[in-house]
């Protein structure tokens, strides 16, 4: 059996259900893989982990993956299970914000640590400065939860359709009291959870074969999760070592995640890729990446499936 280490981008939750399902349901075993799944966290940079040899495969968002690649970590997208983006800005209705133009002069909560790129390129496309100047927005580095909105420390905060949004709802604020701006709807969506490996590993036929088996089994896992969301959520809960996740939340998250994965066979849609790159390059004076990346994705793995 071949050993393979997978570094996730965030903590164990339904966002990564496909991989946990594949492991628990024996899909990895079936293709002779012994996969170790390492949960991520707020200060785990998957690109750094793979550069340090701590993982063979990582899950990352494309903006940060491309930025890392430019910084000299040669990672390559080999598969893209997430078709759609789940990121959005969520505001309280009472703040009076109705459209992105109303952001000016407001305080917005944004995730950093490489997750700020989609936001920054959106703002630069809107022509809204983020440097704190008068007609721009005031940006806060948002912590890991929705408190800034509940405490009214920010007018809008970043949320994922599958996670933080529901925490706001759970906190007792009705959906009618909220207004959301999905990146997908604003036409600035960038690709989220994709599977990345080191470029050099792709020259090794043995590794390539391993990756193929991995992606295949993982997609099998995602399909299973789509068909059996309740069981998949249970599997995730099972694997959560912190014991902090709740069943209600994970079941709901599973449903939302399935919406994002729907329509993906694992292969990267080149049009989506180009759109993401264009969005990242158009950042005005401060683009996320400075030049068109080369060799940042390959269909070498998915086309053989």
């Amino acid at each position, binding site marked *: 059996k071949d050993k393979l280490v997978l570094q996730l981008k965030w903590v164990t939750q339904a966002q990564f259900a496909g991989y946990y399902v594949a492991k628990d349901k024996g899909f990895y075993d079936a293709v002779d893989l012994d996969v170790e799944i390492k949960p991520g966290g*707020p200060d785990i940079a998957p690109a*750094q982990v793979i*550069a340090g040899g701590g993982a063979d495969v990582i899950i990352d968002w494309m903006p*940060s993956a491309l930025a890392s690649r430019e910084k*000299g*970590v040669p990672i390559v997208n080999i598969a893209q299970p997430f078709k759609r983006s789940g990121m959005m800005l969520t505001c309280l209705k009472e703040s009076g914000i109705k459209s992105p133009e109303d952001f000016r002069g407001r305080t917005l909560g944004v995730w*950093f640590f490489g997750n700020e790129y989609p936001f920054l390129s959106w703002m630069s496309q809107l022509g809204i400065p983020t440097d704190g100047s008068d007609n721009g927005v005031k940006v806060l*580095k948002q912590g890991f939860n929705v*408190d800034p909105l509940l405490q009214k420390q920010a007018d809008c905060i970043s949320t994922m359709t599958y996670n933080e949004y529901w925490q706001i709802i759970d906190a007792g604020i009705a959906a009618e009291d909220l207004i959301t701006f999905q990146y997908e709807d604003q036409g600035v969506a960038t690709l989220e959870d994709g599977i990345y490996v080191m470029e050099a590993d792709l020259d090794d036929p043995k590794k390539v074969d391993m990756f193929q088996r991995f992606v295949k089994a993982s997609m099998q896992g995602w399909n299973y999760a789509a068909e059996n969301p309740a069981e998949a959520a249970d599997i995730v809960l099972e694997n959560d070592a912190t014991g902090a996740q709740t069943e209600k939340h994970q079941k709901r998250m599973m449903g939302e995640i399935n919406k994002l994965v729907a329509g993906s066979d694992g292969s990267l849609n080149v049009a989506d890729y180009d759109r993401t790159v264009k969005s990242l390059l158009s950042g005005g004076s401060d683009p996320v990446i400075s030049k068109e990346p080369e060799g940042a994705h390959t269909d070498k793995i998915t086309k053989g499936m």
Partner: protein
Amino acid sequence: MNNGAIVAATFFWMVAWFANSWLVKLNPSNQVLARGINLLIPLIFGVTLIVIWEGITVGFNISPVLLPSPSMIWARIAASTDILWADFTQTFLKAVLAGYAMGCISGFAVAVAVDRVPFLRKGLLPIGNLVAALPIVGIAPIMVMWFGFDWQSKAAVVVVMTFFPMLVNTVAGLAASGAMERDLMQTYASGYWQTLLKLRLPAAMPFIFNALKINSTLALIGAIVAEFFGTPIVGMGFRISTEVGRMNIDMVWAEIFVAALAGSLSYGLIALLERAVTFWHPSYRS
């Protein structure tokens, strides 16, 4: 692998070690010279560490994403002084100084208040020691929730971290004056405040400075770590946590360098102040 760099670093290390061994034995009678040597020796040692670091990163071709070489870090420092300064202003000049002052002063004030009531003293000290051992990672998110995103919440974390060491040390210090000295004040029919001012506070100074020194390093670490849990987009902690995600590890080390420099300088400054104020303490008399 670049063997030249490793060999060069090893050679430098050996030369530096001999230089230091020689300097230690020198023991000059000239005061200024002696003080200079006492500064030079750790400096040579530090430079040696940096040279070895450079030798290893270059020699073993370590990826800069994992550990950048000192020369790269230095280049980054030189190129980003404006960002470093802005971060320093936000974190050190605002959060740390404000929090440090408030934490130390309030710890001191509470200690003096508590000192009059033995019951309070006995009750507070064990609890104080406990709270002092609480991890900042637990306190920081709470403070951000309570005091907002800007430096005030960082200052609050610093206050929590510095308050108890000051409290505990001051209380111990106020008890440190000798029985004989206190009896002496009694024979003068001296009042509480006179005894406090003329005997117990001076005698407590070594303890108070101990807390000031501990707190000077704690405060900086506390403010930086608190920034991991929500900040405006400036500050040393913000930069560190953000640039790791962006694979700009050299920038991270640049901030760490600034932090270590600021921390060591404040520590040194307080140590100098301590020497001036507690000049009478046996540890400073030659």
